């Protein structure tokens, strides 16, 4: 019967016990080291990243190596577990180069370095948390643009590179292939920009006379970069889910406590309905994000569609949740002191990262054959 064939293909949309254990570990680390006042104080300092937090997350918990097989120096887990880490990072908006290094750069190196070579060596260093690497492309680049990114030479300027300030190594796509360039080397300039989202620093990277190690020729590199961006976009949905969930939880908490007109403001239907609607969106975003993580973990041929659907949906949910969070907090939501603005800025920046919802809907159109006029 058809029911049985579908059962075989059905994605696992739940969380396993091991995934919940991992969540608890990450959540308690973030509660300990990255509460809201700490994050707010950090974003205006010279060092937004808390190195001890990264060390504990990447090496202590082993989160940096989740995608990497044990024989290559990682934890031998999958995108499902990395997605849980990102949910928690989204919930805390702590600055940490996890999505860029432990997901996108790691996935690119995995695609290239499974058989040894320079990519494998770097992969082991990322997996252990000893090094951070980021892809030297604008943060807005969608998976579909990976091929077009393989252009130019090592003499170039790239703007809007996320978390370059935290990186030891840049993965630089050129017409010849993909290079690994040490940020500490000669001819590399990483200049911080003023980002909308202060919890995810952006930089302009200028390479002038820099040298690098060629990791792969153009064709396999384009394939690898595409895979990296697909994983990034897919797991970004989990970060957006965690972010949206925090916004809803805090908004519910606030409106239960806040009294006006001699009653909790959360007892007014006009507010309740907006929060109930958000709840439905968060519940739906969870299914979409889990589906993308599971498809990536399984290497499913469905992964590009699952990712495009998750991004097209979750980007807007995160922005909506953060906007509602600010509005339903009233005046306090407009202050620098309250963390709501961190979530709004992160949500809005995330809605551009790895392609806007509109770009992902275009990807859906191509994948399911619903062509434009």
């Amino acid at each position: 019967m058809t029911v049985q064939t579908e059962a075989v293909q059905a994605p696992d949309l739940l969380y396993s016990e091991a995934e919940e254990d991992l969540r608890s570990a990450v959540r308690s680390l973030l509660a300990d080291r990255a509460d809201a006042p700490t994050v707010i104080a950090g974003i205006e300092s010279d060092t937004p990243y808390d190195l001890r937090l990264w060390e504990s997350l990447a090496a202590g918990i082993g989160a940096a190596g989740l995608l990497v097989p044990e024989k290559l120096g990682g934890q031998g887990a999958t995108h499902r577990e990395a997605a849980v880490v990102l949910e928690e990072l989204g919930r805390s908006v702590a600055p940490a180069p996890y999505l860029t290094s432990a997901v996108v750069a790691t996935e690119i190196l995995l695609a290239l370095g499974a058989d040894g070579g320079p990519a494998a060596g770097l992969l082991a260093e990322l997996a252990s948390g000893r090094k951070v690497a980021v892809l030297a492309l604008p943060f807005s680049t969608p998976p579909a643009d990976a091929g077009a990114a393989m252009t130019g030479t090592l003499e170039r300027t790239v703007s809007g590179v996320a978390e370059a300030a935290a990186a030891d190594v840049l993965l630089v796509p050129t017409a010849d292939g993909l290079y690994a360039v040490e940020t500490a080397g000669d001819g590399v300039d990483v200049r911080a920009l003023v980002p909308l989202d202060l919890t995810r620093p952006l930089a302009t990277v200028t390479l002038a006379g820099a040298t690098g190690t060629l990791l792969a020729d153009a064709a396999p590199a384009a394939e690898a970069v595409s895979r990296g961006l697909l994983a990034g976009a897919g797991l970004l949905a989990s970060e957006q889910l965690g972010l949206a969930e925090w916004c809803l939880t805090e908004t519910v908490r606030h409106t239960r406590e806040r009294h006006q007109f001699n009653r909790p403001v959360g007892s007014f239907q006009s507010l309740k309905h907006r929060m109930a609607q958000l709840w439905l969106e968060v519940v739906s975003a969870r299914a979409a994000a889990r589906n993308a993580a599971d498809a990536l973990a399984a290497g499913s041929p469905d992964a590009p569609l699952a990712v495009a659907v998750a991004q097209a949906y979750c980007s807007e949910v995160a922005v909506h949740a953060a906007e509602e969070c600010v509005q339903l907090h009233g005046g306090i939501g407009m202050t620098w002191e309250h963390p709501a603005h961190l979530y709004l800025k992160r949500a809005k920046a995330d809605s551009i990262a790895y392609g806007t919802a509109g770009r992902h809907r275009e990807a859906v159109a191509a994948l399911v054959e619903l062509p434009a006029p």
Partner: protein
Amino acid sequence: MSTAVDAAGIRRLTQQLLADRPPATTDRTDFLEARFDAGLAWVHYPVGLGGLDAPRSLQPVVDAELAAAGAPDNDPRRIGIGLGMAAPTILGYGTEEQKRRFLRPLWTGAEVWCQLFSEPGAGSDLAALGTRAVRDGDDWVVDGQKVWTSSAHLARWGILIARTDPDVPKHRGISYFICDMTDPGVEVRPLRQITGEAEFNEVFLTGVRIPDSRRLGPVGDGWKVAQTTLMNERVSIGGARIPREGGMIGTVAKTWREQPGLRTHDLHQRLLTLWVEAEVARLTGERLRQQLVAGQPGPEGSGMKLAFARLNQEISGLEVELLGDEGLLYSDWTMRRPELVDFTGRDAGYRYLRSKGNSIEGGTSEVLLNIVAERVLGLPVEPRNDKDVAWKDLAR
């Protein structure tokens, strides 16, 4: 018989039934009655009442074996109210005699059931209902009007809630009855809808006599009994697994692919947004199903009806627009009384109009949002002024 409560035993019993009553040569009713008597109707029901006291999860074993053998089923969509609402309530609150009298013909479909709950003056505020039941000897005498009653013109029995005590607050003065729809005081009139059809009825109850032996649960406890009925209504919504592009989005996607001349940029953007939302709703339903199978039911179910109501409305609305000249037409306004509500095979105009009911029937979307806000999110209830007032003193 006692070893039947595992998959192998249930399969054995099913094979025995098929051997005793080969479907090819057995009358449909005989087969269904024999299936009921073998405990294979709903295996989680008690022995003697169509079940085996087995886990509900074993029912698919029976269904698959019987479907493979080409056995007739009880056409569950035709008797949904009996199966989904009346049966669990009778099982939960009925006397032994009531269970034995009603469950077998209910399940086989020999007796169709309807639900006499909503009234013109009691929709979202169902507990405000005004249909009166007054005790007269061994009987109750019922007067009032019910509405939105599907299958009333086909039904042998109706589950009825009526006010037995107007002097106490509204939730406490209600009792629950089984109403004989052939009683001369029962008048059923079709209620024509915006689609032109009459899927539902109005039911006028005038001096209808109901023996006290057909009361379900204690006098004055009808609201509590009705919660069982309504809870089962919500459980039965959204249970089935849907394939990608299942439901209305599949129809509009097909039109888009087959008729390039209809495409515009604006419609394309809206179609893609809805396609993504329909796919996410499908995944959300699938996740809910997986939670139920894993024994971790979540509150997501209350949200699914909200999501599907909005999507059905928006998708069918888009489809009418996409069809352009054809969207200006309607298949047929003739007043008919369909036995089933089914969107498949109907034109976009019908789907557009009928789906307007999806955000009203079975709890309006506004009430469901309140339920999510209060019961799932724990937001405070609105101040109310109807809880401690006798029903007869309420404004209406």
